[in-house]
């Protein structure tokens, strides 16, 4: 006979926590519905999903780096500098596709630079990426000089506020492509296995013949590319860009990844969790807005959310280990 506990222990641990996460999201939504009458309006729901898309695009890149060797703390600054590059170019009458391409190349290069600092110079990722962000925010400020650039062409804005086939919002389309590709690379390719192996135990991975340096370089490259993509979608959506556009995005995007169940210690996690995490994060931010929580509280709330999530993740993995060892 099976009691509840042994049921739990025979299930895949990731499925258990995944179901728990979706359940938590539903609970938060229902609670929000009770507290705020506007929460379940079609307008608000579509707002949440569209905002969550940008968070998820950023989150997928961050997830890959967290799995491989540690979070890319420069995502907010790469998002900023690439968004600035894109809007400057499009305002200088370059074709919008060229400006996207240049922004994506800049983002990928900066990501690769992070990778080189980690693999070739030997800096820990949280120091090189954390350090790089100050320089990048500085350059964004130099380029824009405190001005706000706004009002772009419809072509440029399509990726942020357009609708595919007249109904599906473009950020959602981009997000779905990114999440699918992220899932595919992580789960179905050798590169993905390299990422997980490197994150789980770098020395062991290297000794079993995996090119861990290449894995780290690629992970940061992907993160830089997706930060740039998220930046483009973001400025296209809000139709304006300033030098601090990405300054407050690091904490929520980190929260997104950890709420998605990706382990802070690396080697475990996935993009679907991040997607759910992005929706939870957006619902929380949306909830703070609807409830009129003063914006000064925002950082404190998101910071505590990160800590609570990581603490919960640690507790859950300990429980699962215990349950696993009993079988």
């Amino acid at each position: 006979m099976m009691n509840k506990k042994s049921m739990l222990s025979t299930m895949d641990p990731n499925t258990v926590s995944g179901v728990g996460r979706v359940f938590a999201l539903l609970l938060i939504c229902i609670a929000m519905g009770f507290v705020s009458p506007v929460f379940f309006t079609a307008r608000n729901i579509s707002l949440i999903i569209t905002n969550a898309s940008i968070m998820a695009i950023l989150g997928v890149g961050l997830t890959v780096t967290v799995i491989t060797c540690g979070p890319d703390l420069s995502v907010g600054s790469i998002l900023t500098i690439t968004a600035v590059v894109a809007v400057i170019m499009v305002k200088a009458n370059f074709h919008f596709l060229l400006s996207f391409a240049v922004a994506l190349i800049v983002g990928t290069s900066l990501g690769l630079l992070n990778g080189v600092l980690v693999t070739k110079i030997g800096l820990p990722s949280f120091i090189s990426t954390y350090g790089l962000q100050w320089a990048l925010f500085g350059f964004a400020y130099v380029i824009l000089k405190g001005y706000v650039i706004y009002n772009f062409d419809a072509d440029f804005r399509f990726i942020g506020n357009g609708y595919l086939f007249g109904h599906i919002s473009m950020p959602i389309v981009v997000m779905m492509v990114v999440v699918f590709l992220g899932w595919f690379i992580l789960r179905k390719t050798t590169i993905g296995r390299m990422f997980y192996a490197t994150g789980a135990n770098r020395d062991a991975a290297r000794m079993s013949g995996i090119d861990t340096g290449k894995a780290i370089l690629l992970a940061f490259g992907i993160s830089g590319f997706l930060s740039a993509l998220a930046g483009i979608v973001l400025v296209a959506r809000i139709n304006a860009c300033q030098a601090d556009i990405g300054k407050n995005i690091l904490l929520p995007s980190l929260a997104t990844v950890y709420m998605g169940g990706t382990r802070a210690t690396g080697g475990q996690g996935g993009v679907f969790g991040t997607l759910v995490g992005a929706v939870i994060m957006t619902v929380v931010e949306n909830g703070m807005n609807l409830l009129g929580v003063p914006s000064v509280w925002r950082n404190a709330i998101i910071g505590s959310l990160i800590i609570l999530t990581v603490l919960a993740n640690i507790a859950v993995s300990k429980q699962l280990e215990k349950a696993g060892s009993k079988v």
Partner: protein
Amino acid sequence: MIPFRSYIQKIQPVFWVTLLLMLVFNFFSSRFLSLHNIINLFQQGAVLLIVAAASTLVILSEGLDLSLGSVLTLSGITSVMSVNSGAPVSVAIGIGILTGLICGAITGTLISIFHMQPFIATLGIQGVYYGISLVLTDSVAILTKNSSFIFFGSRIGYLPMAALIGVGAFLLILLVFHKTPFGRYIVAIGGNESGTRLSGVNTRFWKWFLYTFAGGVTGFAGVLLASRLEAADPIVGVGWEFDAIAATILGGTSFQKGKGGVAGTALGVLLITVVRNGLNVIRTPSILQPALIGTILIIAIVIQVGLSMRSTKKEGKNKP
């Protein structure tokens, strides 16, 4: 701890880079090496000297504290708020230090009791401390006119109080590091944590104590900064944690295996202060400065770490 001689060798490049930068700045503006500006340098570097010493202790234990900038901010705010509400200056200073201690104790609890990774715990808690700073001040700087509070940041003739206090505090931390069991445990934990625990040291307590100590020290630095600026600003500490980490690395401390020491950090602080002050003295447009400083620091770190990696490789080759 690494032998003194190789330690000196390790921090050599920073010394030469600093000297070179000083000459370059002096070439562009002869005011740079004037007595007045050198005193300025000491005054400006004083607060960073204290924070960086705290950061070095944490990094020596193979930890990291990204919340120091926010602790600096928050403790400055609580001390200025209490002095403005009529508390005696000694009490206000005490409240600032206490704020730092509490912040550090919370961080330490997350890391040593709940086994969170230092950089996540301190990054998350950074958001919380900045959040509290913003809430307390409602996002605007609080000024203070209390003459005995701002005395600690002022000058007596040519004598900058902040520099004296900063150097004094640094020497005290150096003493704690070299002459107490606490200092030895830090290095031991950084070198081999489980080995240290097995040899009977309560590593959990000492790690907790380390973050609490770093918080308290930074709290004191926050009071000093507020006293020098005659104000507490809710965003004054943004980025200080990175300056402190950069100074630590430039001072020859590595993030692995507890290698390095507190003394070298002073050199790192000197380099950073020279860069910040020099860019001002040669009248670099203020809009360019954050980008320039960020880039210079990254390059300096890359050079320092790259060179020390090369020298450790050489050492390895020489050994049979």
